């Protein structure tokens, strides 16, 4: 008898993604669903999708979800988690959502060490609105609102969320990953799992930044988009673990008990 080695995760609804071909959201959604299945937490998970392309995440992820106003996901997630501390609560945010309009909500949820997981999709543009400059648009990158390329004097610098947030004492775990190759996708799945596990163990705030292709707004084909992440984008946003206190938090907890 053949053993089933690949199938649709249970926590992913049987629906076709509306995302553009080559978009990283579909992959990230799937990875979250796989992790939820693996940890067997579908019944206790509540997700908070953002304003942006992923606003429709509730069409795909088969868990309870509530849409947050633009940028406010971590505030809403904080409210949910504090009310229902035994549920697993995650916010899913884009770069404009997290690093521009919602920087205060994200920063302070992290600083309070809210026991939530933040999945942060960094694709260096505003996707849903048509490819405008994002806080994470890299220098010289052309967008519809930086037609001559992002200029450091006119537009400031790309915001390095993982580096910046890892300085906060409330943060337990931060990793930056990419979803542009099978190897990187596997690394991303591990990071998401670690983030959720961190929350299940009551260890506090974690964030997984995912460099994610947006071929439509980058005006590239999907393959070139994946290459661009490797060759250009990851030079500004190097992947890696920026903070991991899970071991020491665990140790301290064991010491206390």
């Amino acid at each position, binding site marked *: 008898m053949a053993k089933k080695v690949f199938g649709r995760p249970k926590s992913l609804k049987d629906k076709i993604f509306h995302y553009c071909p080559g978009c990283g959201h579909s992959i990230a959604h799937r990875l979250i669903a796989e992790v939820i299945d693996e940890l067997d937490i579908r019944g206790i998970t509540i997700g908070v999708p953002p304003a942006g392309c992923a606003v429709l995440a509730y069409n795909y992820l088969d868990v309870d979800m*509530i849409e947050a106003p633009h940028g406010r996901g971590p505030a809403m997630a904080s409210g949910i988690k504090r009310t229902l501390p035994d549920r697993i609560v995650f916010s899913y945010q884009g770069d404009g959502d997290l690093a521009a309009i919602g920087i205060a909500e994200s920063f302070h949820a992290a600083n309070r060490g809210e026991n939530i997981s933040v999945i942060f999709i960094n694709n260096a543009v505003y996707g849903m609105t048509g490819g405008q400059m994002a806080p994470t648009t890299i220098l010289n990158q052309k967008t519809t609102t930086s037609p001559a390329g992002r200029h450091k004097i006119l537009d400031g610098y790309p915001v390095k969320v993982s580096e910046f947030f890892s300085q906060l004492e409330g943060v337990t775990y931060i990793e930056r990953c990419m979803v542009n190759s099978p190897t990187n996708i596997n690394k991303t799945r591990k990071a998401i799992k670690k983030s959720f596990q961190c929350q299940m163990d009551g260890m506090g705030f974690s964030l997984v930044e995912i460099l994610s292709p947006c071929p439509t707004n980058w005006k590239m084909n999907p393959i070139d988009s994946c290459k661009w992440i490797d060759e250009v984008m990851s030079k500004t946003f190097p992947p890696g673990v920026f903070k991991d206190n899970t071991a020491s938090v665990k140790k301290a907890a064991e010491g206390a008990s």
Partner: protein
Amino acid sequence: MNKVLMSGNNIIGEAAIRAGCRFYAGYPITPQNELTEYMAEHMRNAEDGVFIQSESEIAAINMVAGASAAGARVMTSSSSPGISLKQEGISSMAACELPGIIVNIMRGGPGLGNIRPSQGDYFQATRGGGHGDYRTIVFAPATCQELADLTMDAFDLADKYRTPVMILADGMMGQMMEPVIFKKPKKRIYSDDFILKGAGNGKSKFIRGLLLDVIDEEEHNWKLARKYSVITKNEIRREEHQIEDAQLVIVAYGTAARIAKGAIKRLRENGMKVGLFRPITLWPFPELQLRALAANVKNFLVFEMSTGQMLDDVRLSLQGYAHIDFHGRPGGAVPTPAELANVVARLYEKVD
């Protein structure tokens, strides 16, 4: 029940906790800081009570929305400029049909204005305030006892209609102390079908405010509109004071209505038959109840601590039925009963 002497801000907090409020988020702003501080102190002792001092009013209202979706009785509070910031979240809660209480202890405006008592946020409170086609129930208490009673009632109505409810008071109401007796709160009755607790073994749910399909959004708007007409039919509250023989009726709410009562006492001592019509719900506005008075009374004076906002609603109620005058003191000025009595006396001469 024991009578206690408490400030308005503290009364709201105590009434909320007694009514089962278990989640509060807020950001400091004068003149409502005592309420935030009260919640910080007393949520600690309430079972499952959560207090968060948020990074902004925007964060506060969204925390409250999240907690509401998760099933808690929730409240946030602020004063005028902070309420402007909350509007995004209030609109969102109205769209998502999430119950919650928003307290506005009004101060002088526009802009940062000042920290004196004012009634400049009437339009903002009664017209929705944020974007889109929605309303919030607005209570306008005029005494500390009413602050206690209406705060409790606000939670019940928010649950009953799954809608945000605003308590609109001003700096004077917030700072003032009066004796108060806390009534026994009602048992919470509401359907928890919409609450997110995790799907368990069942079907997953979602709460959303974005309806990209035009027909879906139109349908949702009409659904909200039907709810608002039920509220308008059932929930109007007002007080009528000495109107039986009145030749002139003052229309005022909140602190302004208290001042009007003082003025009426002086005027009646001088033989002038003046009464008061006080809307307790500003939305829904007691339009028909006010119009009914026009059968016997032909002269009305709208008195507000603003340049004339409720005046619009009074005109909608009375235009063509009676003569309407206006007296206003915006920007944080609180007139005395004597001043108002003088204004009314001059008008009254023309009535006879």
